[in-house]
């Protein structure tokens, strides 16, 4: 069964589909849809939290209740449960992190936008670097540089095994943690977008090929819808996991152990 691919459909989807042209042709190449989406996300979050908390009442209004629920969820279930009572001072940063990652992830499935800034490695990389700097600075401030290094690098093990364990601990704590934070978020958004591209564009390809395949395109589009719901679950989960892991690293840096 041979298929003739219509030439205007970008098939198969590739990495080049993620490199968007500038919004206004011929101007700065960096002002793409992705840049605009990040600015929109930042503006939306600032405006939302400012407006809903403008005149807080004891009996909350609906908008105030939504904002308080979001902040309360991160403050109680993430900051307090994972870091402990003095983790509450990190709750504003963790809430902002959670909301920003959630919002930029959500742009990947909103119809019309369908591009998440986190599918470009730069944005998760910067967020991971910020979290990395945060947990290291918190640990160094709490314990002092020498003691923090000793706590992080030297696990409780017999002395003869330490030459093997210390490089492993160093790479695991100072290299892998930010790297996997960034790549986990990036790869989830990248792969999710790719899957949706495959099923959506595949439906169009099948529609335009021979008459036997055209009805199968409906199946492809139904799969695309089902995978969009799965992608919604992945979006919330990845925002939650980024925040939880940052909180967990902060807790590890603050811990008085070994």
């Amino acid at each position: 069964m041979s298929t003739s691919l219509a030439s205007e459909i970008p098939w198969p989807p590739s990495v080049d589909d993620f490199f968007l042209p500038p919004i206004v042709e011929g101007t700065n190449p960096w002002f793409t849809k992705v840049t605009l989406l990040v600015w929109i996300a930042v503006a939306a979050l600032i405006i939302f939290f400012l407006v809903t908390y403008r005149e807080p009442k004891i009996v909350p209004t609906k908008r105030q209740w939504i904002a308080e629920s979001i902040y309360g969820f991160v403050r109680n279930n993430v900051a307090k449960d994972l870091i402990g009572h003095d983790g509450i001072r990190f709750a504003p940063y963790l809430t902002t992190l959670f909301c920003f990652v959630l919002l930029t992830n959500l742009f990947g499935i909103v119809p019309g936008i369908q591009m998440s800034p986190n599918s470009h490695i730069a944005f998760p990389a910067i967020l991971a670097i910020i979290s990395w700097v945060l947990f290291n600075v918190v640990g160094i401030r709490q314990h002092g540089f020498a003691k923090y290094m000793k706590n992080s690098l030297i696990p409780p093990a017999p002395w003869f095994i330490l030459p093997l364990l210390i490089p492993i601990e160093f790479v695991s704590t100072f290299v892998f943690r930010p790297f996997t934070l960034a790549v986990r978020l990036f790869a989830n958004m990248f792969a999710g977008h790719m899957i949706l591209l495959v099923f959506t564009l595949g439906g169009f390809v099948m529609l335009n090929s021979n008459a036997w395949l055209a009805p199968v395109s409906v199946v492809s589009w139904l799969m695309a819808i089902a995978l969009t719901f799965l992608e919604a679950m992945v979006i919330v989960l990845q925002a939650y996991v980024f925040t939880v892991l940052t909180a967990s690293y902060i807790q590890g840096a603050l811990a008085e152990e070994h």
Partner: protein
Amino acid sequence: MLPLAEITGSTAAIGYGLAAIGPGIGVGLIFASYVQATARQPESSRLTQPFVWIGFAVVEALALLGIAFGFIWAG
């Protein structure tokens, strides 16, 4: 000398298929252990649920590294 037999295509695809074995088993283990733990002591389900999601995301990261590196190392 002409090749007697050859296979063309992308070894990145084979690589990703092999790379997905480990995380597949890992994710299965995580959820299996959550189900077993809840079956033994249902009151603990609320306590252990955050670890389910954290563990899932950490293991899934390896599978997604497979997808991402598949594109980077392909052809």
